[in-house]
């Protein structure tokens, strides 16, 4: 193809997102899949077992002492069935966060992987979408495994539980998207530790192990502003069969998270590697 004679520098870009997106996020995912398959799969397994251990120790162990718990709708359910959906949401979050924070941080700061990718015809949105999708996939894998364990233990109380799978996909997508956006602004290991500093209390306090009603009203509002609470409520509603239209707000919350994460990640990658 001869392009040497083509001299029209003011030609409009051929696609609306031309400089940002080449429609090839798949190649970025494919890369991540190969890399995970060859090097990281043991680390990957550990993330899968973490929520299962919580379920066994807290749900079955502590649950024997707690007995049943009364939900906000007044339904009596076993303690394990109460916390299992919360841990399912946590599993999705963990999987998504692992790939979208530490992995991304390493690739940006040390491996210069994105520098290499962005000197090909890929755009920053391809890289963002590819990496986030991979994180999402990991979250989905963790969650599916966890759902299976829940089914075996008889903790899925309703057929609505089937919808918990797309719900955790949404949750994983949200966390992956925001996780990568936040990570793209991080420069040091110390800053990366802040992420854990935020995640741990969020995990413990987002109505994961007990109802929101134990908090005073002011604190309830704080918890309700956090993303994990929305995930927990959404999944809990589905696996326990207490479904109502208000759950759509949780969905909307995650859709906004996904959009914001994608916008900021793309912007930041562009600023960093395509200045």
């Amino acid at each position: 193809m001869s392009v040497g004679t083509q001299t029209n520098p003011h030609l409009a870009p051929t696609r609306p997102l031309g400089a940002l997106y080449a429609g090839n996020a798949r190649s970025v995912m494919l890369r991540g899949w190969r890399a995970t398959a060859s090097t990281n799969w043991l680390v990957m397994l550990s993330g899968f077992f973490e929520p299962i251990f919580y379920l066994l120790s807290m749900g079955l162990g502590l649950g024997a002492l707690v007995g049943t718990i009364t939900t906000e709708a007044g339904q009596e359910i076993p303690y394990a069935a109460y916390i299992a959906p919360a841990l399912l949401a946590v599993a999705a979050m963990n999987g998504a966060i692992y790939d979208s924070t530490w992995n991304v941080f390493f690739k940006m700061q040390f491996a210069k992987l994105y520098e290499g990718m962005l000197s090909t015809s890929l755009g920053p949105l391809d890289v963002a979408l590819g990496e986030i999708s991979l994180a999402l996939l990991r979250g989905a894998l963790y969650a599916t495994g966890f759902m299976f364990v829940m089914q075996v233990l008889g903790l899925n109380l309703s057929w609505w539980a089937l919808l918990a799978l797309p719900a955790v996909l949404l949750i994983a997508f949200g966390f992956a998207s925001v996780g990568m956006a936040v990570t793209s602004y991080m420069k040091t290991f110390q800053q990366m530790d802040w992420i854990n500093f935020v995640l741990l209390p969020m995990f413990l306090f987002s109505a994961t192990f007990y109802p929101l009603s134990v908090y005073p009203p002011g604190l309830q509002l704080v918890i309700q502003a956090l993303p994990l609470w929305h995930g927990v409520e959404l999944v809990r509603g589905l696996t326990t069969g207490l479904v109502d239209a208000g759950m759509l707000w949780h969905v909307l919350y995650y859709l906004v998270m996904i959009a914001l994460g994608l916008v900021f990640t793309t912007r930041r990658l562009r600023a960093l590697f395509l200045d």
Partner: protein
Amino acid sequence: MPDPVIVAQDLRKTYAGFAAVDGISFAVERGESFGLLGPNGAGKSTTMRMVGAVSTRTGGSLSVLGLDPDRHGPEIRSQLGVVPQSDNLDTELRVRENLLVYGRYFGLPRAQVARRADELLAFAQLEDKAKAKVDALSGGMKRRLTIARALINDPSILLLDEPTTGLDPQARHILWDRLFRLKEQGTTLLLTTHYMDEAEQLCDRIVVVDKGAIMAEGSPAELIRRYSSKEVLEVRFGSSRNSEVAERLQGIGDRVEVLPDRILIYTGNGEAELVRLTDAGLHPITSLVRRSSLEDVFLRLTGRTLIE
């Protein structure tokens, strides 16, 4: 007939008030091998990044393959091969996988990439290492793999940022040989380097860049002819005697430069000058005849010390 694939006119890049590239103009013809020479911080890499469509310019105009990099980044990048200054190979993937995955970034079909990867492994003399881990490769091998990777999309232009910095002589020579083959096949090369010998090996034409501006332009031979001599005779008489001896060196060489530790005599024939020296009764403690290097041309252009 001239067929420029890269045209830069008064190209500028400013970072927070600092002009990294300050009005550079040059044109690279199709099939030409063009070198940007200069010290660290001269603006070489910034220029390369703008040509590579990964950095937008602050001013001037730039056309790569007839397109504006600020507007057509992906289209331009799809036809470039980039060898960055420091290797950014994918260490989580094996050698051949690096080529396969990189090819897919360009959206090329799997079968085509696989075929090309095998050709390039042969070209880079890495066939035995196809399944090796990247970290297990030597510096020279990593460099060759990076070059192979840059060729996966069959680029019209290959951009090389200091391709042999940090390599041992054997590795450099192998690399030069590979790059020379590409040049023979008609690939346009744009490279930056510190080394005059590298530029002489590979470049048809050179611009010398310093502080973001072009100091000189020409073929390696022209530059040496214009700004230095073919050879340099370095003699040492001991720190205390150098300047005293220097007065007796009238008429020797094309030009004499006295440094605190040694005297440089620029000449077309170093050995002959050395004979003339000893005939004149001057016996240096040590003497060295070498070819002119970038340093000689460059220091001549920018002045040696004390004008910082």
